[in-house]
């Protein structure tokens, strides 16, 4: 009785557009300074990576036979490598690949983690046992090792397969968190209501449970971007990652590290860009967590 009165009283106000999930999210983000700084840096790096090669006077494969290992100059902005290739162009192409790998791998990881975690937490029982067991098994398998062993298979199959594999080895921790949240969410009234109305289980998970933990998923996807970039760097450093003619920041660092003292420009430019990239992504992830997670307001 009193409820309906209250509702009537507030009805006219409710008629003004209530900000939806996404618009309130955007508003929250714009208000967080760290997120904005991080985003601006990332957008800057993306612009640099894709526009840079167009501005460079040198081609990707082109060698300057007059300048092997020459320091940065007006001709070669980042100097040249040991085969006379223009470091600026190489670094920009590597930056493109690293960004792409990070974004795609994080997307795949989060999708796998959300599905596995939500299904395990929603159905519990046997499905949960089985899925969590697989998760534990994946946690025990050393990811770096498995990717390195699989490398002979990957060598010829391009970078997208590599990205999918990267994602297959990174989803476990997020899946465990999603499972925990699902267990508590599935007891909420709106989930019960949906179930009593006869909505199918799969639809409840996709429409009601997963959107309600979108903040966790977004934060985690951001953190996964930087983990993927870091893992890729390590793999490429040992030659188990992306294969030539493709280059990433990781493979450039591997090459530059061998001559870091004699020819510092082959090492420091790509390393610096990698650090800036990961730093910016972490900045966004950290700010997002504070903005989206009500429990962590105190942590700023």
């Amino acid at each position, binding site marked *: 009785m009193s409820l309906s009165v209250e509702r009537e009283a507030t009805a006219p106000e409710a008629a003004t557009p209530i900000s939806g999930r996404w618009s309130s999210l955007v508003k929250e983000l714009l208000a967080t300074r760290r997120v904005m700084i991080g985003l601006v840096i990332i957008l800057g790096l993306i612009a640099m990576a894709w526009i840079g090669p167009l501005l460079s006077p040198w081609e990707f494969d082109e060698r300057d036979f007059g300048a092997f290992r020459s320091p940065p100059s007006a001709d070669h902005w980042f100097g040249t490598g040991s085969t006379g290739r223009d470091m600026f162009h190489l670094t920009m192409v590597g930056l493109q690949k690293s960004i792409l790998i990070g974004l795609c791998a994080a997307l795949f990881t989060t999708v796998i983690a959300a599905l596995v975690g939500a299904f395990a937490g929603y159905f519990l029982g046997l499905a949960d046992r089985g899925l969590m067991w697989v998760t*534990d*098994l994946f*946690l*025990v*398998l*050393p*990811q*770096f*090792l*498995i990717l*390195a*062993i*699989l*490398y*002979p*298979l990957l060598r010829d199959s391009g970078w997208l397969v590599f990205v999918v594999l990267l994602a297959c080895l990174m989803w476990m*921790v997020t899946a465990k968190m999603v499972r925990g949240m699902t267990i508590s969410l599935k007891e909420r009234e709106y989930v019960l209501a949906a179930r009593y109305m006869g909505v199918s289980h799969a639809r409840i998970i996709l429409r009601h449970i997963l959107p309600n933990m979108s903040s966790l998923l977004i934060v985690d996807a951001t953190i996964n971007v*930087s983990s993927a970039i*870091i893992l890729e*760097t*390590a793999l490429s*450093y*040992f030659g*188990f990652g992306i294969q030539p003619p493709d280059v990433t920041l990781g493979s450039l*660092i591997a090459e530059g*590290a061998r001559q*870091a*003292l004699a020819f510092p420009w082959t*090492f420091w430019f790509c*390393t610096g860009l*990698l*650090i800036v990239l*990961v*730093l910016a992504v*972490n*900045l966004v992830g*950290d700010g997002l967590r504070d903005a989206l997670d009500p*429990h*962590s307001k*105190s*942590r700023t």
Partner: protein
Amino acid sequence: MAKFLIRRLLSYLVLIFLASSIAYLIAASTLDPRGHFEQMQPPPSDQAIEKELNKLNLNDETPLAERYATWATGVATADFGRTIKDQSVNENIARKAGVSLRLIVAGTLIGATLGVAMGAYAAVRQYGRFDRVTTVAAFFLLAVPAVVVAVILQVSAVWLNDVSGMRLLEYGGEYSPNLQAGFWGTLADRVQHAILPTLALSLSLFAAFSRYQRNMMLDVLGSDFVRTAMAKGLTRRAAMIKHALRTALIPTITYFTFTFGILIANATFTEKIFGWHGMGAWVVDSIATQDVNAVAAVTFFMAVCVMAASFLSDVLYAWLDPRVRVS
């Protein structure tokens, strides 16, 4: 409580077995030992290759299930087979596991302890100068991949040695070969070699832990039980350490279990970059030489390490959290 630990231990044993089996199967089906022998100079005859492959249980014409069965029976009797150079894998493990364990244990102890201590202190002094400096340092370190940390340390060691004109820091190998300096000299030599790799490993661990511990501590500091502890007359220091830190350590221990796999991978990179002949460096080399048995053995070792860390955190968990002990 003992029952809880025993049950965990049993499931860990199953996981270790499965993880090494999977690694063996993947390695046996993707690596190419035949190619390794065919590339030798001078190339051996086909019969010789065949004979060698059969002897080492690496022949890709033997069905995978049969090779796996041979390998598994060997492992059941604690024999990991022969490496591709026909040495005993067991002897190699005995020689290399210690090197890796020294690095991992020292790195973990230094990194985790410093990280937890500094993170907790930073939380108590939130927004103070110490807090700001450690937060910025941790944030920056987290953005640098472990490989790059190791390489940068190595490059700066070379630079430092050049500038000072002495060998202040060693950056290659685990000890100087042919050193005749008695017990203390050898010890000093080993420590000198160990500084940089241990530092490389503990830096990233320190960054992750100090950040995590700071957040957990901040969550706890405002709680009622900490206030009550101080209200009933405990000194601030005792309340912080006995009540706040103890509670805040529980999630950190879970975090430790999750990140231990990454730590082992980082140890692999560190060993390889600093030229330590440990398990990690061995696995990178054995993938290059198509050495299936060695790869499986290292996976086994790493799975055991991860499980040991999980078990350790189970014990710590039970020690810190009375609720686990009671139920």
